């Protein structure tokens, strides 16, 4: 399932890249950092990315997930990079049956 989720995240990154300046484009890689000190993404971009990913997951799997819940921003930080985000989404989807 993770491959499909990563594909959905990459699709969402493409959508967000359409309106980001060239020097801020987000690389489509599982190692790409999304939050933290080394990330260049501002809060508006993160929000846009969250919404775009939620839409892709719903379109692809028919499951509505909530990435912006307070648990998501816990100490473990599932938004650290694309890979950790995919795992987080996978666990959320396991908890929410379509």
């Amino acid at each position, binding site marked *: 399932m993770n491959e499909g989720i990563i594909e959905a995240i990459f699709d969402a990154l493409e*959508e967000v890249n*359409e*309106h*980001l*300046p*060239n020097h801020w484009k987000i690389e489509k890689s599982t190692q790409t950092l999304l939050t933290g000190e080394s990330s260049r993404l501002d*809060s*508006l971009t993160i*929000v*846009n990315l*969250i*919404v*775009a990913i*939620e*839409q892709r997951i719903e379109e692809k799997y028919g499951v509505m997930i909530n990435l*912006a819940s307070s648990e998501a921003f816990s100490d473990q930080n599932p938004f650290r990079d694309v890979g950790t985000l995919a795992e987080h989404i996978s666990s959320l989807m396991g908890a929410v049956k379509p």
Partner: protein
Amino acid sequence: MNTLEIKSLIIADFTADVLAGYLNNDDESPRVKAACGPYGQVFQVLADETHGCWRNEHEFAVIWTRPEAVIKSFKPLLNYQSIPPEKIMSDVDQYCDALLRVRDRVRFAFVPTWVLPLYHRGYGILDMKRDLGVASTLMKMNLRLAENLEAAPNIYVLNAQRWIEAAGKKAFIPDLWYMAKAAFGNEVFKEASKDIRAALRGLSGSSRKLIIVDLDDTLWGGTVGEEGWQNLTLGGHDPAGEAFAEFQEALKSLTNRGVLLGVVSKNDESIALDAIKSNPEMVLKLEDFAGWKINWGDKARNIVELVSELNLGLQSTVFIDNDPIERARVREALPEVLVPDWPTKPSLYKSALLGSPYFDNPSISQEDRERTQMYVSERERQNARSNLGSLEDWLETLETKVEVQDLNEENLPRAAQLLNKTSQLNLRTRRMTEGELRNWIAAPNRKFWVSRISDRFGDSGLTALVSIEIFDRKANIIDFVLSCRVMGRKIEETMIHIAASYAKAIGLEELFAEYIPTAKNKPCLEFWGTSGFELAKEHNAFKWNLRQAFPCPSCVELRFYSKGSFVETAPVLSSASYL
């Protein structure tokens, strides 16, 4: 508008950075550099012309608001309170007064109409009741907004409802609002960006003017050379036939906006033309086409020849063909020609055409509506010419009439349009809005004449203009602009005669014309080189000594009009413009 990057300011009562991003990321010309004003300070920015936002000399502004945020009395209406409609309209008027202040700060401003989230059902069954419904009130507010802003010709109201409908379910995303104060989803901003860019293309005179279509499986279903015109899929009680007929109707409708139609097709010309003339289901007739190239040659080469015959540029052209190989060939050979991806299903042809944002213009003149007829007249003119000997003999038979007027409020929109859209026979390629032109002519040392050209084949409309500026007893020709439709018919010399006669009559000694080269106005330099003017010391400047009259060509009948009435056959000498 000729700068490489157009600076713009987005003023909104919500986060609109995504719109700025879409505008900035489009590589198509004109390039835009958009920035957002401070969040939620619409009134402050509009009211204060010294606000830091305005320091960057933006060429255009987008002012986008939510009705409940800027129209105080609308919010309670949304909460189903009873609000007097006149109170709401008064608030709209007040907001419009603030909007009108930007007209002098930017060259153009775009104001999207107000919309409501799709989930807001208003009063449901009662929502279109006058003076009660939310939807009916919002419609009236938008109409009032558009009417009020007509006071500023450089402010354009854009229909945001179309963007909402195009975005569908993705138009309003509550998470984006609650987490980022973005009022709309990305799809809405993307559609808005497309429309704003289309408006910019129109305002900079770079909208497309010519659609060249293929025939087989594009204009009709089937191959006419093999099946015969009687067996084509077109019209009748057939889904595909109806789709082809409606596509033709859509093409024809665009001619009313000034778009020309042409045909480039691999076929035997006689067979194809016979099909157009004889098939009773054809919506498009031969006289709807400005020209055609129907043969077995390379389509890219045929497009170049047709565009050249019509005196247009490749950058003004759209090519529509159902065959992806032909499209790829034209795209590669002629990158300036817009070749849209074309749907495989004829049922989608009409929507693909009417949804394309390449034909927008800031005004529609009578000349635009009659443009195809003018080209048909030109075709007849050229046919007549081929039966005659010399060029002079032919010109004498045309019975050309040039009707001259000073610039006035009636002809100002068309004059500005001609100034902004003409590239080839254009001395200095000045691009000006109506307001800028009005301000320019207000100076007493300037004169501006516009001319309507007609001959025995038809009326070409207001297609020539010339203006002068007087300094130190010398007159300088500032604008010398002719539509390509009237080039080479001695109108050029006639326009100089008008300016020279006026300058001589008021006692000036010399008339100058300075040519400013562009990528497209070489035909203008070629004309001036043969005009009889002396090449002045300055590079690309031409001089006429006014002790000698510059004659009016004998093949032209010149008439002057003032405020709609014929006045005299000499230039109008009143120095004051009656704008």
